[in-house]
């Protein structure tokens, strides 16, 4: 359709038919002020700030509800309009307190800005302002009625975009009031979208209010460390006595894959970082008790012990358990450390999805995985298993809003009536545990329908659904960890017959996908190459074992039985998660790197206090395969990144760290501080250590970007634009493994069972999450995740 031509303030504007005037003005750099207008929410026309003069129309028109028409001549700035805006601000301020200096939104308030731009110095109002006391609606949401300007953004975002509907409007006209669904409190997903979207200080967050001012913080856009969706969260940090404290998480930078969205975890659950139980110095077990020690003591001891075991019993007597929450660089480095320095393939992690089989099924295909952005734009989506609303809040948001704004057809197949069924074009309920039969049936095995037939869906329903799905184009097939092993291959086979189809395999933690891609497997190298076939890596790294090592379970069994002489656990809590008895690991030398004294750390011989993902730079790969940067935001004195600790242990074992981290070598595109967020100068910080080791002081072996170089070189799919990555954009990695499937035991996959308000160890140490769980009387997950 041809564009519609209009004239705004003398400028010619052409925009597609149906464009709103306010949006058309934006395209030529004319900002029409507004409060109630918010892109992608229903039109309200409540605040009357966006009044403009359209020729031949009798009165001023609201630009936010006027659709452009051919030949329209618009004036957005004139004495008449300025007067109108002035009056609107005066009306809005009728009941609004004029106490910006004590208001929590002061400095980032749209009303404050607007009053500066358009407001009058004095008001004609002499009446008393309506006052109501502030209310606390939930542990994270506070409402201050007098500050509300009734733009209804919060109500619309909650109803339309979140599909929660916890906020409503009561009464009428000037006495209207925003009301929570439970009379005086909220029963909702606690996403905080209402607070984020509030243009004034009416809705404020329990975790941030009255702590600081926006201009006193540094704002660091980084990747969330909770679920596997990889939202960008902007952390506000401020100096305090223990380093850089994170005071706020929000969605100030809306450039991430999450757009407007952020859930409770990304927004408020950064507080584990400042928990009082946080470890801040190394602990060494002396006389049966963990006792504070210096870093040098700890590294010397670990280096000595690891070397000893390696010499006496060989590398296969050492086990390494990696993490789902450490960066790609750390995961890569850890498995390289295990294979090259320790000389063992005994490396594993807590697996939450069957990525190796998924990679093998996609062998040879290009662009077969869906990115998080694709989910928002696809014309059709098939969701099998999982409950994204609870486990993948961003994915649920993308699906929900794709259906709402783009009329996507959503097909849900689940054993429970999950919340997304409300958006579904078809919802088919299956008996519990029958997901594998769904995959088989879709792939063409008609007899598999026997296991799917119930009073909810008969054979016809299934046949019809299959033909309906086959008729789709550009279908995105999303599946939870219920689908594993050969079922993934069936599903890929089914999808491959649909033009333009893409797949999305759901893992559970922030970097589960990264841990898998980086080769935290006893039988798989980075990029899912079989350890027996690692020529490419051997060339780069030198000698390493090729026979598959032990799985996590085998390592623990080995450690318990005393066969394994040493165990190195990085950012994982297998003892707590598997409910092992204390004292089980006493037969081996155990080193644990963690933030807290977890059940596993409590049994260790050496505990090293680790920094978390908000306190380091590096990259995360979300469950879709979107690669994103981590920028260093907070800092707690006394902790080190897992990256630095791995390098220091290698050094303590007498290993040449240059062979582990290719820093400062020719061709290295190492980072000079771009990813350091609020604190640049990683190399400067280590200058003393570097000089003592006769190393180039400008490049540091603790620089994860040097390992990223190697990852980009050696891991298929990861050779993406470094510039875009450093700029804070998401880069989709193309997943394609070697066609030969290294069969994985599906029983090794265990879902984390995290829901909206839980997040494994991080959740247990987040006071905000716990206060919400307490208020909502939610049952904690049966199995403690890590």
């Amino acid at each position, binding site marked *: 359709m041809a564009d519609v031509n209009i004239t705004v303030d003398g400028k010619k504007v052409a925009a597609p038919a149906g464009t709103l005037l306010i949006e058309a003005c934006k395209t030529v750099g004319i900002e029409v002020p507004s409060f109630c207008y918010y892109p992608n929410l229903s039109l309200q026309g409540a605040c009357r700030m966006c009044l403009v003069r359209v020729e031949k129309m009798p009165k001023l028109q609201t630009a936010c509800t006027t659709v452009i028409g051919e030949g329209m001549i618009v004036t957005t700035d004139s004495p008449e309009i300025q007067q109108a805006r002035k009056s609107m601000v005066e009306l809005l301020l009728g009941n609004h307190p004029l106490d910006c200096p004590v208001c929590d939104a002061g400095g980032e308030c749209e009303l404050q800005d607007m009053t500066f731009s358009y407001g009058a110095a004095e008001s004609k109002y002499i009446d008393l302002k309506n006052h109501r006391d502030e209310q606390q609606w939930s542990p994270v949401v506070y409402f201050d009625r007098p500050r509300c300007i009734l733009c209804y953004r919060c109500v619309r975002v909650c109803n339309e975009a979140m599909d929660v*509907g916890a906020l*409503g409007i009561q009464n009428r006209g000037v006495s209207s009031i925003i009301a929570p669904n439970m009379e005086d409190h909220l029963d909702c997903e606690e996403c905080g979208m209402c607070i984020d979207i509030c243009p004034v200080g009416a809705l404020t967050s329990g975790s941030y209010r009255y702590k600081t001012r926006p201009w006193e913080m540094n704002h660091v856009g980084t990747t969330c460390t909770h679920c596997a969706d990889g939202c960008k969260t902007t952390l506000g940090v401020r100096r305090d006595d223990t380093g850089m404290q994170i005071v706020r998480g929000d969605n100030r930078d809306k450039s991430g894959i999450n757009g407007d969205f952020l859930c409770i975890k990304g927004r408020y659950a950064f507080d584990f970082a400042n928990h009082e139980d946080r470890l801040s110095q190394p602990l060494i077990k002396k006389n049966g008790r963990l006792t504070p020690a210096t870093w040098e003591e700890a590294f010397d001891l670990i280096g000595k012990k690891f070397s000893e075991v390696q010499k006496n019993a060989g590398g296969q007597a050492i086990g390494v358990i990696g993490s789902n929450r450490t960066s790609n660089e750390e995961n890569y480095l850890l498995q390289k450390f295990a294979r090259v320095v320790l000389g063992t393939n005994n490396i594993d992690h807590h697996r939450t999805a069957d990525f190796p089989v998924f990679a093998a099924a996609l062998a040879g295909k290009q662009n077969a995985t869906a990115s998080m952005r694709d989910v928002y734009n696809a014309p059709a989506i098939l969701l099998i298993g999982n409950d994204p609303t609870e486990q993948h809040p961003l994915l649920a948001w993308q699906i929900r809003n794709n259906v709402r704004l783009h009329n996507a057809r959503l097909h849900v197949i689940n054993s429970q009536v999950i919340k997304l069924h409300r958006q579904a074009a078809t919802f088919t309920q299956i008996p519990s545990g029958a997901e594998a039969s769904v995959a088989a049936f879709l792939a063409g095995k008609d007899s598999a329908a026997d296991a799917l037939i119930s009073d909810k869906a008969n054979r016809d329903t299934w046949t019809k659904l299959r033909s309906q799905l086959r008729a789709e184009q550009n279908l995105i097939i999303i599946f939870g960890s219920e689908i594993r092993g050969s079922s993934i291959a069936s599903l890929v086979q089914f999808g491959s017959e649909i033009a333009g189809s893409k797949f999305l395999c759901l893992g559970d933690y922030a970097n589960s996908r990264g841990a898998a891609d980086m080769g935290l497997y006893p039988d798989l190298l980075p990029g899912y190459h079989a350890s027996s076939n690692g020529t490419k890596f051997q060339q780069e790294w030198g000698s390493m074992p090729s026979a598959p090592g032990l799985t996590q379970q085998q390592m623990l069994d080995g450690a318990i039985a005393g066969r394994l002489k040493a165990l190195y656990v990085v950012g994982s809590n297998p003892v707590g998660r598997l409910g092992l008895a204390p004292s089980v690991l006493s037969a081996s030398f155990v080193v644990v790197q963690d933030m807290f004294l977890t059940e596993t750390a409590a049994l260790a011989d050496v505990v090293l206090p680790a920094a978390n993902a908000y306190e380091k730079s590096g990259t995360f790969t979300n469950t879709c395969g979107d690669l994103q940067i981590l920028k260093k935001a907070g800092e707690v004195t006394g902790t080190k990144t897992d990256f630095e600790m791995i390098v220091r242990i290698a050094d303590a074992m007498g290993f040449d760290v240059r062979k582990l981290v290719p820093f400062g070598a020719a061709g290295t595109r190492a980072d000079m501080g771009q990813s350091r967020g609020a604190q640049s100068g990683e190399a400067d910080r280590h200058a003393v250590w570097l000089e003592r080791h006769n190393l180039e002081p400008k490049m540091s072996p603790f620089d994860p970007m040097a390992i990223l170089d190697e990852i980009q070189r050696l891991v298929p799919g990861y050779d993406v634009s470094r510039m875009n990555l450093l700029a804070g954009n998401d880069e989709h990695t193309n997943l394609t493994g070697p066609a030969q499937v290294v069969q994985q035991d599906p029983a090794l996959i265990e879902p984390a069972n995290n829901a909206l308000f839980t997040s494994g160890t991080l959740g247990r140490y987040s006071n905000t999450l716990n206060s919400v769980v307490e208020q909502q009387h939610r049952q904690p997950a049966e199995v403690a995740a890590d």
Partner: protein
Amino acid sequence: MKFSDKFEARFTEMLTHYPTQRSVLVPTLLYAQDEVGYLSDEVILELAERLALSELDVRNVISYYSMLTTKPRGKFNVQVCTNIACMLRGGEELLEHCERKLGVGNKGTTKDGMFTLEEVECIGACSWAPAVQVNYDFHENLTPEKMDEVLEQYRNKAAR
């Protein structure tokens, strides 16, 4: 909860009147209020369930309309108009008279549960101001004396 057959018949019929189901809410609330006397929590829950709305949605609508109430009222709701036409013809004096006579203020209910007094805006009876509406009946061209008669009339009605 149980409504009368008449209510149910009306409700069923109304469902066919509107393109969207939630539109049935406003008339239904009025009928339910006529029957129960006010919109109790029980009524709100029932109607929310029937129309697939949240309780909050229903409460939002109720609070918008001043004729809908979530608080019990007396048997007779005496609505005195004090809008401009009635005010000029003695509406405010009429309201004060009622307050004295009934011993309650605006929106108050007499102890015996007979009358609720309410000051309302224009009820569309300006030509016969000052006017008072009791439940659905109009009483016009009133004076304090005539008002006494009206109230007496309702007392007698209730006694019968």
